[in-house]
Every structure is written in structure tokens, then in C-alpha cells.
């Protein structure tokens, strides 16, 4: 009963006892911290938050939180999250992914999740590499990045998640850097509060397979302009920036996907009734 009535939380209330097995120095540690801090600011009880993921280093995150977690199959976190949200519209749904999981096998779901505009937040920890399988190029990897799986580089134009999100109808688009905990926390709070599908790309360095990404902290700078509600303007800005602008780039006004499921499952009175002795 005391848990259900609690209204203020500490960051540690959102952390489970599981110790992350990320490599020391991984940017994802900071993302985890920013998420817990954002949830403190939002004041949402851990049991009212669902953290959904796919497969990959970043997708381990649900187990490190004390929220409801769902570790799905590779690339499928967005439809899982959508199913969860339409069945339980009262929950705050955060879908967590990486550039491999989210933009390769999950790429098609990304387009349609933006279109569907279900009220949830999609966080992609982008390190431009497959880390869990030990260093293969992802859709956001630079074309000349050499690896065993891409001899001499892929030669492919990198996927541009923010532009694709805009073109597909996401209602909130932002980029952050994992090392900027304050900025990331602020943006995550705003992303969760913004109605509809919010997309936040977090540049999160992989120090093991992309040691060059340690330099990101010196390359990051705040976006020189205010966020816009015009997707065409936002797209132009993103396509002409250097890839290291951070902050909120787009706040849209599209009406979120309308759920018709009656919200009774999360009613505390009904829950209490069930547990009454």
C-alpha cells in the first residue's frame, strides 16, 4: 500500500539490483542514469513505467531498471511497445534500442511507429556499431569504417535517423549526447511529456569497438536554433548540420494515436481490491 501511495522518488528507486555488464566507459551507463533522473523529475512511480527493448548492448537496459521490463527479440521493440501502450494507455512506455537493433531489422517498424504516433518515447543509443556481436558496421556507421564484416568499409551512405523520423511522422525529434546527463535528462522529460511518438537519438560512444568515439565529447555542441514545429525546416537543419548538434529539434502538433481500450486495468482501487485480505 505504501508503494502505491508514494509520490516522490529518488533515482535509485528506478534502478534494479542487477549490475550492468556493459564495458567500462560505455555511454549506456550515462543513458541509464539520465533515464532514472528523468523519471524522478516526471514523478512517475516505477510500476507505472514500462521499459521495452530488443536485442543488443543497449537493449539490456530494462533489467537494470526497477520498472516493468520487456526484453523482446531483435528489432521488435517498437511493435511490442505499441501493443503494451494500447493495452495499458495509463503506463509511461519507453522503448529503448540501439542503432543495430533499431535501424536494421527494426528499421521498418521505426517508419511505421513514427506514422502511427502512439504516445510513447523511443530512445536509440547510437554508437554506430554492433557491440554485442563484437564490432560490425550498423546502418549509422560511416562508409569507410573498416571491419572484418565490411572489408574496406561498407561504402554505404549512413542511415539518418532524425530525418527519417521527421519524414515518417514522429511528433517529437531530438538528439542528445550520453555524456551530457543534464541535457539528456531534460530532453527525456520533455519527450515523455510530449504527446504522441517521441524520438530521441542519444549518441552513446562504444569505447571498445569504436575508441575514436571518445572524441565525441569535444565535438558535441548545442543546436544553434530553437526547435521548430515545421518538419521541413527541421529536416533541412538536420541534413545540413555536422551530426553533433544536440537538443530538441522538432516539436510537432499531430494528434496521437487514439486508443480505445478502456483504462480500468491500472485503476488503483481495482488493484487494491484484488490484494485485499
Amino acid at each position, binding site marked *: 500500500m505504501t508503494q502505491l501511495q508514494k509520490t516522490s522518488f529518488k533515482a535509485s528507486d528506478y534502478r534494479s539490483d542487477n549490475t550492468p555488464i556493459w564495458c567500462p566507459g560505455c555511454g549506456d551507463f550515462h543513458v541509464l542514469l539520465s533515464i532514472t533522473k528523468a523519471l524522478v523529475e516526471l514523478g512517475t512511480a516505477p510500476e507505472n513505467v514500462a521499459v521495452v527493448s530488443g536485442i543488443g548492448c543497449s537493449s539490456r537496459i530494462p533489467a537494470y531498471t526497477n520498472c516493468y521490463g520487456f526484453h523482446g527479440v531483435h528489432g521488435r521493440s517498437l511493435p511490442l511497445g505499441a501493443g503494451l501502450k494500447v493495452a495499458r494507455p495509463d503506463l509511461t512506455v519507453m522503448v529503448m534500442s540501439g542503432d543495430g537493433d533499431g535501424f536494421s531489422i527494426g528499421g521498418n517498424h521505426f517508419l511505421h511507429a513514427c506514422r502511427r504516433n502512439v504516445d510513447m518515447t523511443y530512445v536509440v543509443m547510437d554508437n554506430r556499431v554492433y557491440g554485442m556481436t563484437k564490432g560490425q558496421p550498423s546502418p549509422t556507421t560511416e562508409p569507410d569504417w573498416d571491419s*572484418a*564484416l565490411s572489408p574496406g568499409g561498407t561504402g554505404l551512405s549512413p542511415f539518418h535517423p532524425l530525418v527519417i523520423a521527421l519524414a515518417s511522422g514522429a511528433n517529437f525529434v531530438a538528439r542528445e549526447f550520453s555524456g551530457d546527463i543534464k541535457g539528456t535528462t531534460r530532453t527525456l522529460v520533455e519527450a515523455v511529456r510530449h504527446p504522441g511518438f517521441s524520438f530521441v537519438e542519444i549518441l552513446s560512444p562504444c569505447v571498445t569497438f569504436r575508441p575514436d568515439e571518445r572524441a565525441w565529447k569535444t565535438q558535441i555542441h548545442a543546436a544553434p536554433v530553437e526547435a521548430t514545429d515545421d518538419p521541413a525546416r527541421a529536416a533541412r537543419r538536420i541534413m545540413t548540420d555536422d551530426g553533433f548538434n544536440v537538443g530538441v529539434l522538432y516539436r510537432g502538433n499531430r494528434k496521437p494515436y487514439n486508443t480505445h481500450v478502456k483504462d480500468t486495468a491500472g485503476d488503483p482501487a481495482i488493484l487494491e481490491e484484488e490484494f485485499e485480505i
Partner: protein
Amino acid sequence: MLKQLEGSVAIAETVAYCRPEVVCAYPITPQTHIVEGVGALVKSGVLSNCEFINVESEFAALSVAIGASAAGARAYTATASQGLLFMAEAVYNAAGLGLPIVMTIGNRAIGAPINIWNDHSDSMALKDAGWIQLFAESNQEAVDLHIQAFRLAEELSCPVMVCVDGFILTHAYERIDVPTQEEVDAFLPPFEPVQVLDPTEPYSIGAMVGPEAFTEVRYLGHQKQLQALHLIPEIAKVFQDVFGRETGGLVHPYRTENAETMIVALGSINGTIKDVVDAMRESGTAIGSIGVCSFRPFPLEALAKALDGAKRVIVVEKSLAPGLGGMLTSDVRMSLLRQAIPVHTVIAGLGGRPVTGVSLTAAFELAVNDQLEDVHFLDLDHAAIEHEVERSRLTRKSGPTAENILRRLGSGV
């Protein structure tokens, strides 16, 4: 040439000597080292005239291979587990179109629960897609089967999966006789596709076929597999002539003379089984084993012949058909239609659980004494099962099974 190599690296090197013209690569554990190995050989120039494509998914990997094969190129890819299931639609497509793609499977369990370790659930899920499935017992056999697979696939116009136990073989360092380019060239002729892009006779592949001809197309796919039952031993014989090694073929009988108890299994577990057979033979038990190398086509006759005279058969399986028991067992029973021999199933090694000689010996001894259940789960933690069953009996909201069991194991209760 004899080399001390990781299984994946030896497979990659051998595949390169088979001169694939298109290789599609996507990482998934425990297969990644294989395609990375091929990539490294493309980069170093050992494998030239090869388009090495890093794709966005397993579905794309096999689909690109299908496109390449349909255009007349020798195409290769490799995958495992969830990756194989993700490409399932393309797996059927390749077989239905008769495209001789060779694909390595680094056998691994299927989730949920998520598990990266070895069992045979992945290739079993696609056993009836129309592909030939060959299982390697050792890394030497894995290497040799790849060379045979290209020849088999191309002679029949039928795709072939070479199933290699994940980690147990893919990540094991062994002394392996890796063939030379000259040896492979002497055995494997250049690919001559039956379907070519011919401007004098243009056609579109992938026709819609209705009830009037669908069965016939399927029947011809079946007939191809039956043809393979003859071709597989023939190719193994030619291979032996060129390389001097007996490898491949339909089945591998081991100490089957006068055996009353016969063990049947797929893949690397046959190594442990042979050790157990040796030890039990030494203590006077009439026991032998048969490794099934060709799982599809299934060697019904060869197996019936090899099992003739046995009093009992025990099939050790690294996969489970829930609600039935063993999938290999069903096939073994099919081969014994005209022989009244009891067939037991031992489910072992699921999700990478080690299969020990001690546990296998205990199960085989039970069988020898006619005390083994029809379907036996090796080293099953009965306390964990009872605890979870009781838990779900007591409360409707009993929670997720896997997490409950892990929590209990972690707490040591």
C-alpha cells in the same frame, strides 16, 4: 594442410576455396566468426571475384543470396538461431525455386527465454523447408561437408544447410586438415546453373502456381531429396578419392556389430556418445551408435539396415517438440516401420546444457535394463519443475516462468 584453427575460421577458409561469387554477411552469435573470416579473406585477396555484401538482416542475407543465385552466381551465407527463423520465408523460397545456395548454420537455441548457446532448435524448425540438411560431427567434418555441399547443391539445384554445433564446434580450436585451393578446384567444378538469364528465352522466376500444379512442384522437390539419398554417398566417395578422408555420407555407424542397444544422434554429441559406447563395450555391454549426417533427406533405408538386429534404440536429441518429444525420434521410428524395435528419446543439451558421459551412461544403462522412459530429459532439475508447477497452482498471477526459475536458483532456495 594441417592447421590448429578455430572451427569458424577453418570453415571460412574452406568456403573461400569453394569460390563463392556472392557472400551475404550479417552478424549473429555463434556464427559471426564465419562470415567475418570470409570477409577477411576477401580483403586479403585470397578470395577474389567475390561480392561480399554486409546486409541489414538475415532476411536480407538470404534474399540477396537468392537474387544472386537466380542470376547464376555461386552464393553463400551463414546464420544461426533467431536469424534462421527470421529468414524462414526466404528459406522456403530458395528451396521452392531450386536455387543451390549453401548456408552454414551455427546451431543455437531459439528464444524465449533468450539463449545464445547450442542446441538444434533452429535448423529443426526449418527441417521440412526443402533444403538438404547435413550435420557435422567434428570441425574436420564441418570443413569437408562444405566442399561437398556446394557440389551436391549444384548437381541437384537444391539448397543445402551445413549444420555445425554453435560454440562446441564453431568456437573450438582443433587440428584440422584444411584443403588447398588446388584440391578444392579438383573436386568442385565451376557452377553451371540450370536457370540462367538468357535473352533468347526470357522468363520470370517466382510464378504463381495454383492447385493445378502446386503438388507436382512440391513432389519434384521431394524427388530431388530422394535423389540426394544416392548422390550424398556418391559425392562422399569421390571426396574420399580426392582428399583421402572418409567423411559425409548418410550415416556413421560406430561399433554396431552385434549391438543390442543402439544410440542415434545428430552432430557433435556423437563424440561423447562414442566415448560412452567405448566404455560400456569395455564393461561388456553390446552397444553401438549411429551418427546421422544427412538429416534431410532422411536416410530411412540406410538407418533401418544399420539398426537391424538391435533390441532397443535410444535417440539423443538436442531439440524438443513440445507435446511430442523428439523430432529425430519420429523419423527414426519411420525408418523402423517394418521392425518392432522400441525407440526411446533422450532430450539433452538444450540451451547449451553440457551433456556429460556420466549422465549419458546412466540413461543408456537404464535402457539396457529396460527401465528408461519413452521420453527422458537428461539431468532435468525436478525440484525446480515441481516448485514452479506448485507456484502456478497456488496463484493465477504466478508471473513469468523463466524469471521465476532464475530467481529461485539465484536465491539458492
